[in-house]
């Protein structure tokens, strides 16, 4: 039987505020355990939370960028459950009056555009972190992350494949980066997703029973966990088993998902309004002011690259998909008009080396990429040499002009010098001359290759070509 997959996502993003949601402790990642803590964020009895105004502002920015209605009246509620990383035994979240509702995002999978509905975006506090206790067999609790502000973005069950889910999370990540409301560092857990997934026979309109796989913190994990769960559910159904509504975890190292123990599945959070916190009432003026000051978003930047700079849609999509790349591209094109060539370098070698070296940032200035392109365009260096210089820039972060001078990589475009090389190569390869005269055009390519080798990549290939033809046709 053919099945349709139904996926909805809950994406959690840590907000890039300086302080926590309800106290003045720093949100900085990586501090010594329990050093960014106070009575409020460690849940000491009697401590009173006071809402950070930036949290509201950032959540509204995200809501507006994701086409949501902003609710002028909002409140915060307690979500009650026991877990050792949650010192108050409740999480302050939002239940029935979230800040943002009814939004949508457009995703693009292989040129297929699709709207994904966003049910709501609400603010809440993050939990602490449990560390494995190597000696005691228990756990050690670090509350630095407790009370760090989060937004939870809840989608409609509109996705039908892992590719759509991935594109959706990528889109959210790009938007939050452009808004500068979250740094979205997935490996630090500041962007993570829960996947709700069910299957149903194709054509069926009722939803099947869904499972929720929690806390996926890389695109790879999201994709693999979805593929795993689709396969598991289809196999279960084909074997006549029933799908149980349950919370699941994903073990990325072993590549398997598994159900959490039953007890914690009791999704009975007994929400009620937090009596320690005041209501949030926002004026239309306040919301409009945020709307008018939103920065440029990925979609509009993409259109600009396509319409004004003539980039292919595919390239524009990838470059604007990361704020870091788009900013790098914009900065580089200030120093060089050849936007297409800058884009090619980014799409090709730059992305390849970034992935290989697992780098988050390019180690040299955008201006340097522009200089490299200018040197190629002006004929100062060949593209073969440019590739080597580019690798060097990744190693040293140096100015390509300096690298070229220091290593003597300037392209040989002097007629006399080129002729010398050509004559030498011809003298050493008499067979190629015979082949060429016998109509084997490949011989020319071979000779040019030999000449490039002779000049260690520095000879101007167009000039070599021309001069070989001149000599051979004499």
């Amino acid at each position, binding site marked *: 039987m053919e099945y349709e997959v139904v996926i909805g996502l809950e994406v959690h993003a840590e907000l890039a*505020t*300086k*302080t926590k949601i*309800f*106290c*003045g*402790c*720093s949100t900085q990642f990586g501090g*010594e*355990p*329990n*050093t*960014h*803590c*106070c*009575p409020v964020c*460690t849940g000491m009895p009697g401590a009173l939370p*006071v*809402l*950070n*105004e*930036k949290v*509201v502002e950032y959540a509204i920015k995200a809501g507006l960028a994701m086409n949501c209605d902003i609710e002028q009246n909002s*409140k915060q509620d307690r979500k*009650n*459950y*026991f*877990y*050792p990383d949650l010192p108050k035994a409740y999480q302050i979240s939002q239940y029935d*009056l979230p800040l943002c509702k009814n939004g949508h995002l457009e995703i693009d999978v292989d040129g297929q555009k699709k709207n994904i509905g966003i049910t709501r975006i609400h603010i809440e506090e993050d939990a602490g972190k*449990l*560390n494995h*206790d190597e*000696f*005691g*067999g*228990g*756990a*050690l*609790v*670090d*509350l630095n992350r407790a009370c760090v502000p989060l937004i939870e973005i809840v989608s409609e069950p509109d996705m039908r494949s892992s590719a759509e889910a991935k594109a959706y999370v990528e889109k959210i990540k790009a938007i939050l980066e452009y808004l500068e409301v979250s740094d979205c560092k997935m490996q630090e857990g500041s962007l993570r997703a829960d996947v709700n997934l069910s299957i149903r026979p194709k054509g069926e309109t009722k939803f099947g029973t869904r499972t929720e796989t929690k806390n996926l913190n890389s695109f790879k994990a999201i994709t693999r966990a979805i593929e795993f769960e689709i396969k598991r559910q289809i196999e279960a159904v084909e074997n006549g088993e029933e799908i149980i509504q349950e919370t699941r975890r994903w073990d990325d190292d072993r590549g398997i998902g598994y159900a*959490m*123990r039953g*007890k*914690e599945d*009791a999704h*009975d959070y*007994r929400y009620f*309004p937090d*009596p320690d*916190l*005041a*209501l*949030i*009432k926002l004026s239309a003026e306040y919301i409009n002011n945020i709307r008018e000051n939103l920065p440029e978003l990925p979609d509009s930047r993409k259109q600009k690259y396509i319409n004004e700079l003539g980039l292919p849609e595919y390239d524009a999509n990838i470059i604007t998909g990361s704020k870091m790349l788009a900013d790098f591209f914009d900065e580089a094109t200030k120093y060089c008009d050849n936007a297409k060539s800058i884009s090619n370098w980014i799409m090709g070698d730059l992305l390849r080396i970034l992935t290989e070296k697992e780098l988050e940032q390019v180690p040299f200035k955008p201006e340097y990429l522009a200089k490299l392109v200018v040197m190629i365009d002006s004929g100062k260096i060949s593209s073969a040499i440019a590739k080597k210089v580019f690798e060097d820039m990744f190693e040293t972060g140096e100015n390509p002009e300096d690298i070229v001078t220091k290593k003597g990589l300037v392209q040989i475009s002097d007629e006399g010098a080129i002729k010398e090389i050509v004559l030498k190569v011809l003298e050493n390869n008499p067979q190629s001359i015979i082949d060429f005269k016998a109509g084997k055009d490949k011989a020319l390519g071979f000779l040019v290759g030999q000449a490039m080798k002779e000049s260690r990549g520095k000879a101007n290939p167009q000039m070599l070509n021309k001069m070989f033809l001149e000599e051979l046709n004499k």
Partner: protein
Amino acid sequence: MNITKEELKHIANLSNLYFSDEELEKYTKDMSSVVEFANELSKIDTQGVEITTSILGEYNIFRKDEVKESFDRDILLQNAPEQGDGMFKIPKVIG
């Protein structure tokens, strides 16, 4: 309004409480009378009264996003039954 034993068990579970059979018997009765008492409120006509979302009656109490000094870790860990590496030490977590 009667609470069943099963309902009481469920509520106790959510609160990490475990009762003996006698306790379960007793608290089921007690809880029933508590709920019954609370149900008196539903006799009041609340037509046209807005749902209470806050008992403070206040709104927009915000804090500026400015870093304040955090607490000394030793003070925060003072009440921890056990600690290790500057963290709260807890028994093994299942899940």
